[in-house]
């Protein structure tokens, strides 16, 4: 028994069960990564069936799955993987040619492998009969060919892994794998991993990020204290700590960055399956797969992106015959791209389909009472309607998606990760949806202000400038909350009133002018403290529905400051209209009604200075 332990022996002196348990845990993530790689490879093979590199890769991945599954005593998976591997061995040797049929079958097999792993790792369910059916189909393909190896191991393997009676469906064959084969798989795996990266538990990473966050908080306190004490030696130390902390923070953040490519490859499958189902020919092209984003952002991005892509497939891209008739290539294209832009990442889903239907959207908006029948609004504004809950132009609804149905959910998910969603569309030429996302969710540059005793933080990228609000320079005309900033009229909101904060405002207040989207709106606070590295903290389940506050952070003195959700505050506080007085004969026609947001009323014709918002 001792010698037959073979490759396991050098790991530790722990019991066999313990070792296998450990191996299983290690294998969990890898298994899913391997399956993703297998799927990507298969889709590649579908495009270029003769690609020997892809065939080799498929073989290698299957081989690793088999080897590692064997090591973890997942014998039913190992034997299943062996069947497919044996088949790809023949393909590799040039005895069989890859056909579409084979690819489909292998994709089915890969799905089945995923559900078998789900049974083990994710409490999923799997149909074991299906495994046999797929194996049977493979056998049919390989029958009569030479070189198909039978799957069996030396009996000694029984001793190797005493857990063999634990897993595996009743009646499934509990094949064993020779230690040599395991060794092989293990070396291969180590060879791949050691060269580029190490695997770290997410929990450890999260606590590292938290620690870096705490350090940023303490450092702020140190700098503050050094400044108050006026000790120059202490100040220079504080400055050095500040620099190091900033570096540490950036580095820690970068550890959590992942390329978005893995998410992209998931969509290839979505496009492939859906377009086949709908009888459309669609190609998914991607760009910028190496663009890095915070892990949490990527995780939250998957569902909204799938939704957008499904919309494009279902409603954007036309059927081949329609496309031919319109003088377009038969095959539609969905282009998925990611690129860095300052502190943001732009993700674009671009299709060359029919574009949004201006008239249908308009008609539905009017029908639903969101828009006046004679209202004049730009296409840009019109597109925003598809983001309204339940908005759908009836004839477009299908089982898969309806352009507009669920787009409000997409918008919500994107809002939740502080992203911005933009739509542009041209009839007949296609639709582009752009998501502008922050690089990270953990730390932001903030702008610290005070109202009474409370501290509030503005996200710095949204802050344009600050002006003083004295009793004199307030736009005095009929009590409107407007201020003249170098010739531009800017409306402002008194946060003290919005938040019902008691107490008297100081004689000179400060207006922080923010720019959310294209509009400039001022928010009035008592005093400005300055820039602040803000470590985001959630307010927790009990405060999840609070409007206008997106989170909290800890200040140097240990007190809590609240982070303002500027776009939400503005939309809460206004019902707006843009007035182009000189060229609009009837400005009230441009009114865009937003239900339930009637806190602010509109001034009919106050100033002919051009576009502005009026807030009372």
């Amino acid at each position, binding site marked *: 028994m001792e010698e037959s332990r073979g490759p396991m022996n050098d790991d530790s002196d722990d019991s066999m069960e313990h070792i296998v348990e450990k191996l299983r845990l290690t294998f969990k993530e890898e298994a899913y990564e391997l399956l993703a790689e297998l799927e990507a490879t298969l889709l590649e093979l579908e495009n270029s069936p003769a690609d020997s590199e892809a065939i080799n890769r498929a073989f290698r991945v299957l081989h690793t799955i088999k080897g590692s599954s064997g090591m973890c005593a997942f014998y039913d998976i190992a034997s299943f993987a062996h069947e497919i591997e044996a088949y790809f061995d023949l393909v590799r040797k040039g005895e069989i040619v890859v056909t579409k049929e084979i690819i489909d079958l292998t994709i089915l097999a890969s799905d089945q492998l995923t559900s078998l792993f789900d049974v083990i790792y994710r409490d999923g369910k799997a149909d074991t009969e299906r495994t046999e059916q797929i194996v049977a189909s493979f056998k049919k393909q390989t029958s009569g060919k030479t070189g198909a190896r039978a799957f069996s191991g030396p009996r000694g393997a029984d001793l190797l892994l005493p857990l063999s009676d634990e897993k595996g469906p009743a009646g499934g064959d509990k094949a064993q794998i020779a230690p040599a084969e395991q060794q092989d798989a293990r070396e291969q795996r180590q060879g791949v991993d050691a060269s580029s990266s190490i695997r770290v538990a997410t929990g450890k990473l999260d606590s590292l990020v938290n620690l870096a966050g705490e350090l940023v908080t303490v450092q702020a306190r140190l700098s503050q204290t050094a400044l108050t004490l006026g000790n120059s030696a202490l100040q220079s130390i504080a400055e050095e700590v500040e620099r190091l902390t900033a570096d540490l923070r950036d580095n820690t953040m970068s550890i959590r960055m992942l390329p978005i490519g893995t998410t992209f490859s998931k969509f290839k499958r979505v496009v492939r399956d859906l377009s086949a189902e709908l009888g459309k020919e669609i190609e998914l092209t991607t760009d910028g797969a190496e663009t890095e984003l915070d892990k949490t952002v990527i995780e939250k991005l998957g569902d909204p992106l799938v939704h957008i892509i499904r919309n494009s497939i279902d409603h954007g891209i036309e059927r081949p015959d329609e496309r031919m008739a319109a003088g377009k290539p038969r095959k539609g294209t969905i282009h998925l791209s990611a690129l860095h832009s300052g502190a943001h990442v732009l993700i674009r889903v671009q299709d060359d389909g029919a574009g949004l239907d201006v008239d249908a959207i308009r008609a539905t908006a009017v029908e639903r009472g969101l828009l006046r029948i004679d209202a004049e609004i730009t296409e840009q504004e019109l597109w925003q309607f598809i983001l309204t809950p339940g908005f759908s132009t009836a004839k477009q609804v299908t089982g898969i998606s309806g352009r507009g149905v669920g787009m409000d959910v997409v918008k919500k998910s994107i809002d939740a990760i502080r992203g911005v969603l933009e739509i542009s569309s041209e009839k007949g030429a296609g639709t582009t949806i752009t998501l502008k996302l922050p690089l990270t969710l953990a730390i932001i540059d903030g702008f610290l202000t005070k109202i009474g005793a409370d501290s509030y933080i503005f996200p710095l990228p949204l802050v344009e400038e600050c002006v003083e609000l004295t009793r004199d320079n307030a736009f005095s005309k009929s009590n409107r909350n407007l201020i003249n900033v170098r010739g531009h009229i800017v409306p402002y909101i008194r946060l003290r009133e919005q938040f019902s904060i008691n107490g008297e405002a100081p004689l000179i207040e400060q207006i922080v002018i923010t720019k959310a989207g294209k509009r400039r709106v001022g928010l009035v606070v008592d005093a400005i403290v300055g820039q602040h590295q803000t470590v985001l903290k959630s307010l927790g*389940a009990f*405060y999840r*529905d609070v409007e*206008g506050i997106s989170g909290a952070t800890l200040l140097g003195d240990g007190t809590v400051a609240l982070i303002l959700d500027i776009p939400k505050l503005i939309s809460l506080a206004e019902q707006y209209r843009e007035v182009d007085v000189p060229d609009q004969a009837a400005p009230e026609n441009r009114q865009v009604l937003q239900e339930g947001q*009637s806190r602010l009323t509109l001034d009919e014709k106050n100033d002919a200075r051009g576009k502005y918002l009026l807030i009372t």
Partner: protein
Amino acid sequence: MTTAAIMETTQYLTFTLDDEVFALDIGTVREVLDFRSITRVPKTPEFMRGVINLRGSVVPVVDLRLKFGLARTEQMVHTCIIIVEVAVDGETTVLGALADSVEEVLDLGADHIEPAPKIGTRLNTEFIRGMGKQNDRFIIILDIDKVFSIDELALVQAAEINKETAGLAATD
């Protein structure tokens, strides 16, 4: 003490609100803090007093007196914040509860606990797990998960915000 007796006896942390004594299962109590400044979160009901910094975490604080229809808790010498763990939607959430004073940790056997009375208390009887008897006084044992259930807090919140909005609209 026999095993059965140990099983039946539970430890409770007793505290006062106004002149009434309440108790919480000690298993739900994490620690007791001195009163400290609380940051108010705007647009939330009064009894949600705000948030505090608990060693780097942001923890909400609830004013139990307001929640139970008493006058707002003012800071006194003995005022403290009881940090409890509450199960919300199956997840454990940490929460602070303001108390006028914290008394002691008390062993109460099952035979000293009576079911909650249907009438005769200001409290919603749903919040009460039972009435403990110690010497001659009654102790109201709270069902902390019910008191702080998200529905309970959210419903009131919605009502308050509507009121607030209506009030503001009227002043426009």
